[in-house]
């Protein structure tokens, strides 16, 4: 099953500190491969913390691990992740003559990715 | 610098040395005017041409934080007026607020070799210096905004006058400024701290301070006089732009009490009370102001003439810009600087059919034509506030050519003209007088002894114009421009690029004053005291003009 949700790209302090060490360091790559999702949405989709999930837009897709957030912090239907190599896969190159590609509040299709061997 | 030049057959206008149109040689050696030049020196035949010292602009806005905001806010003003690069010069854009490179080249292209940026916040000094470094050809300096400085106000309020004077000297020196500038003294505190209010008279209380503009202005004149600065306090008076402000201006001029004081762009402060049924349309106050200046040799002024067309209001007088916003259209910029200043920017167009604009135009011309001492009522448009510096040739023609002026007068708002005194004035400026108001006069008011003149030892900044009955055409494009002895423009074309000098002062102060200033920084600034002073890297080519005590002490 897939659902359409709204993806917000942003920054976090962990990303900021990891950035100083280098964007090719494992910590940075790990940080930029996690998507935060509303816990109720995750339950509905049969996802738990660290489950793999595929995000897809008309230009590309990315497979990420998800992390639950309570509704008071992240409403249903909203996803958050820090900018990085994964978000670039989902962004369209068109800027509507502004120079700025849409980097926040992107509509994405969300699809759980079954993991081999875990049986879940 | 090593090259030598001999300019022959030109009619020389060098009023500082009493030379009024004589045909004589001008020799250049090692960047200076010399008594003679070696036989192999390059000769420039200036037959049919006029030779003058390079122009000196005593008041313009060409570099620094507010100028850059004004550039950024008007892409539409650059697009139609581009400045292409050549093999040797950088490209840029023009409009009323040109890019730095275009500014330098265009000043040089009019025969100007020195210009003074007239309003920089101390905190913006580093930025202004970076821009001035990228402003080619001309020598340049800036006036530092001190007239709304919170710490200086505190010292003045507490009567700590010696510390006040030392702190003023400190501020001028550490920012590498040329002169202290006051803008609408007291206005910023009301603007920023009291819901966008403003000062309306010299005796208003300045917000929480036990001070009035009268007390502040007098305090600065006193301190600057004691410091013996080459250029005195440079004042943008209160109530600028307001109908009836001539009374405030005269009151402010009286505060000088015989001490040297410069009044910036007085045209904007020379409006009489409202005329007829109108509550706001000003009459001309030019006659009163001109008369005061004529009879008070301690007072000097630049006119700040208004030229019709596109301009940009950019000023430390934030309430003024806010008021003009209602006429200016859609864009308004305001920028507050902590403890130091306000700032306002509004793109603006002066229209000849509009009563107020026509009156401003007429008042500017009246001030010129009523002035009896061209050495003390000098040329400016307060670029770009009254109009761009590229309009200078037209303004020169308006002063030199009565018929041209009459024709122009016929096209402007006649009601305004009726209430000005312009119709009664038939004076025409001579070339010698033009040389005074655009060169010799401003240089003398600035205390730049080696500029604005062609005597032996003077800086070899020379402009050669082809004579033409149309003075606008003549002054629009000099045939040759020489800067520091280098032939920059030859046959109207740039031959080489050139970097001019920063001109600044470094008044002495009691170093103990830093113990007074530093704690204030800890509490109320967001930059550390140790990081505030601008170091010498920002002035790779510079010249320190000595204060009177320094000159007397013959310091190196």
């Amino acid at each position, binding site marked *: 099953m897939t659902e359409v949700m709204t993806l917000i*790209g942003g920054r976090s*302090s962990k990303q*900021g*500190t990891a950035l*100083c060490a280098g*964007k*090719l360091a494992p910590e940075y790559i790990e940080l930029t491969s996690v998507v935060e999702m509303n816990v109720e949405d995750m339950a509905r989709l049969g996802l738990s913390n660290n489950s793999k999930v595929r995000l897809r837009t008309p230009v590309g897709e990315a497979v990420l691990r998800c992390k639950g957030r309570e509704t008071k912090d*992240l*409403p249903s239907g*909203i996803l958050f992740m820090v900018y990085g*190599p994964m*978000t*670039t896969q989902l*962004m369209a*190159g*068109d*800027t509507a003559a*502004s*120079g*700025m*590609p*849409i*980097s926040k*509040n992107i509509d994405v299709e969300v699809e759980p990715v079954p993991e081999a061997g875990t049986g879940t | 610098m090593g090259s030598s030049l001999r300019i022959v057959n030109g009619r020389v206008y060098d009023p500082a040395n009493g030379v009024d149109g004589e045909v004589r040689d001008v020799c250049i050696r090692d960047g200076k005017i010399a008594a003679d030049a070696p036989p192999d020196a390059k000769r420039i035949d200036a037959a049919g041409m006029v030779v003058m010292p390079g122009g000196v602009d005593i008041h313009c806005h060409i570099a620094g934080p507010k100028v850059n*905001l004004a550039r*950024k806010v*008007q*892409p539409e003003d*650059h697009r139609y007026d*581009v400045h*292409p*690069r050549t*093999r*040797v*010069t*950088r*490209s840029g*854009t023009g409009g009323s607020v040109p890019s*730095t*490179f275009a500014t330098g080249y265009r000043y040089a292209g009019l025969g100007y070799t020195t210009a003074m940026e007239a309003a920089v916040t101390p*905190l*913006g000094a*580093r*930025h202004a210096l*970076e821009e001035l470094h990228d402003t080619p050809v001309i020598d340049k300096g800036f006036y530092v905004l001190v007239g709304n400085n*919170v710490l200086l106000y505190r010292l003045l309020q507490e009567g700590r006058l010696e510390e006040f004077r030392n702190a003023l000297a400190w501020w001028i020196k550490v920012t590498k400024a040329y002169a202290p500038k006051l803008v609408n003294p007291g206005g910023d505190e009301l603007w*920023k*701290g009291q*819901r*966008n209010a403003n000062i309306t008279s010299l005796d208003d209380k300045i917000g929480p301070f036990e001070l009035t503009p009268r007390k502040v202005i007098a305090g600065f004149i006193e301190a600057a006089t004691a410091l013996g600065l080459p250029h005195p306090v440079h004042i943008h008076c209160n109530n600028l732009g307001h109908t009836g402000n001539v009374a405030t201006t005269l009151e402010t001029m009286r505060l000088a009490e015989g001490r040297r004081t410069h009044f910036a762009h007085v045209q904007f402060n020379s409006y009489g009370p409202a005329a007829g049924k109108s509550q706001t349309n000003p009459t001309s106050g030019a006659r009163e102001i001109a008369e005061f200046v004529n009879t008070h040799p301690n007072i000097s002024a630049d006119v700040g003439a208004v030229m019709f067309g596109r301009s940009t209001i950019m000023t430390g007088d934030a309430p003024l810009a806010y008021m003009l916003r209602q006429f200016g259209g859609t864009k*308004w*910029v*305001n*920028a507050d*600087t*902590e*403890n130091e200043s306000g700032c306002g920017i509004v793109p603006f167009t002066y229209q000849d059919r509009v009563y107020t604009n026509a009156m401003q135009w007429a008042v500017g011309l009246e001030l010129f034509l009523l002035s009896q001492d061209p050495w003390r009522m000098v040329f400016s448009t307060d670029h770009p506030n009254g109009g761009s510096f590229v309009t200078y040739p037209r303004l020169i023609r308006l002063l030199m050519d009565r018929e041209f002026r009459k024709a122009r007068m016929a096209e402007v708002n006649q009601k305004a003209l009726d209430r000005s005194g312009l119709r009664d004035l038939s004076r025409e400026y001579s070339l010698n007088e033009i040389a005074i108001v655009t060169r010799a006069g401003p240089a003398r008011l600035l205390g730049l002894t080696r500029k604005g003149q062609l005597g032996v030892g003077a800086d070899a900044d020379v402009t050669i114009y082809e004579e033409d009955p149309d003075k606008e055409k003549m002054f629009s494009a000099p045939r040759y421009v020489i800067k520091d002895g280098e032939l920059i423009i030859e046959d109207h074309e740039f031959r080489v690029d050139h970097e001019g000098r920063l001109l600044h002062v470094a008044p002495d102060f009691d170093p103990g004053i830093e113990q007074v200033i530093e704690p204030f920084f800890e509490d109320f600034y*967001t930059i*550390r005291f*140790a990081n505030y002073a601008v170091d010498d890297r920002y002035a790779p080519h510079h010249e320190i003009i000595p204060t009177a005590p320094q000159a007397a002490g013959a310091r190196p």
Partner: protein
Amino acid sequence: MSENLKFVPHATCTFCGCVCDDMDLTVDMDEKRITKAENACVLGKAWFREHGIEQRPYALIGGREATTAEGVEEAAQILARARFPLIYGLSDTTCEAQRVAVAIADMIGGTVDTTTSVCHGPSGIAFETVGESTASLGEIKNRADMVVFWGGNPAEAHPRLFSRYAVTPKGMYIPNGRKDRTVVLVDVRRTMSTPVADIFLRVKPRSDFEVLWALRALVKGRRVDPSIERRTGVSLAVLEDLVARMKSCRYGAFLFGMGLTMTRGRHFNSGALLALTTDLNEFTHWVAKPVRGHGNVTGADNVVSWQTGFPFGVNFSRGYPRFNPGEFTTVDLLARGETDAILILASDPAANFPKAAIEHLKRIPVISLDPKTTLTSQLARVAFTTATYGINVGGTVYRMDDVAITLRPAFESPYPSDEEILSAIRDRVRALLGGNRVPAVAPAVAAAS
């Protein structure tokens, strides 16, 4: 840790646009490492800690180790040959280097664009349409009794915006610091920043413009339909309360982030906020300030503006500067496949640009200057290793409020500065071209067309 320690007071952190100049650094001179950064936030501490000297080649040409001089020659050849070259980045280096970067673009008739175009570029466009009432950060510290953060998360991205400039510090007319201010936060989600706020408005994604426009209407005394809540997630009563507070404060400040510029509405969102700020000045004093990310992105805006008249996305191919976002901005030039060579100065577009733009980067010669290996440097034809500005290199940076600050480098790097490499490239390109490249079309004709 060695005994050979050096103390560098009053140093400046260039990690983010706060550009805090109160860093007191302790440097281990034997290990060439900053061991302590007093006053630094968590980001600043990482910035100083992680910028030691790494053993990297001075330059890589096609992956092969090379000297800086060889890299300069190769880079100059690429730029002199290119027909539509682009110089991009600029926001994490000194103004001195930025000035040379623009000079090269001017000389070769290329394009210069900065990370502003994918940051607050839309706010720059908004500025050009409505202007801006703004202030230096010290005015906010000294005077602001109401502060509204919109579309940003300073607690994680600009921590000292709260602690040094806008929320907790005591100021001249804010004697009690935090207690004297009303703090409002507007965002689409709760973040680490939310707890700082007295009032939190959670707006629905993609509805910032509607909220701002409703506020404008209310400020001007117009009626707003209660259905605004359905559209935006914020009730009319909350908006009315906010407007009442805004009109009655003494000195208000908006600090807004990329929550406005990177989403639907882009420059319209920033423009609405700037227009609201202007409107509020009918009643009391209000200022607004885009919160800037990179350490010297504000310097890049200033340098490009004073040299060309335009803030970013500037093309010189006709012999003079032209500005057109969407035409001369980097994402567009790359995604459309127009650029045929690119010099990337202190930026990593391969890590954050849209996929189509990154694909084009892989097709053209890339010249990169960076202290670290990045995704961009990995795909570069010429990759220079440079010294880090603010840590090894002096010069000038501009804080987000346009205040210029002089850097105090802590220790020397064996690698050259951006300015040194760029100056060498500029001189070599000039020699190859014999001066500035002047277009065949006469400038007067070009200007008239």
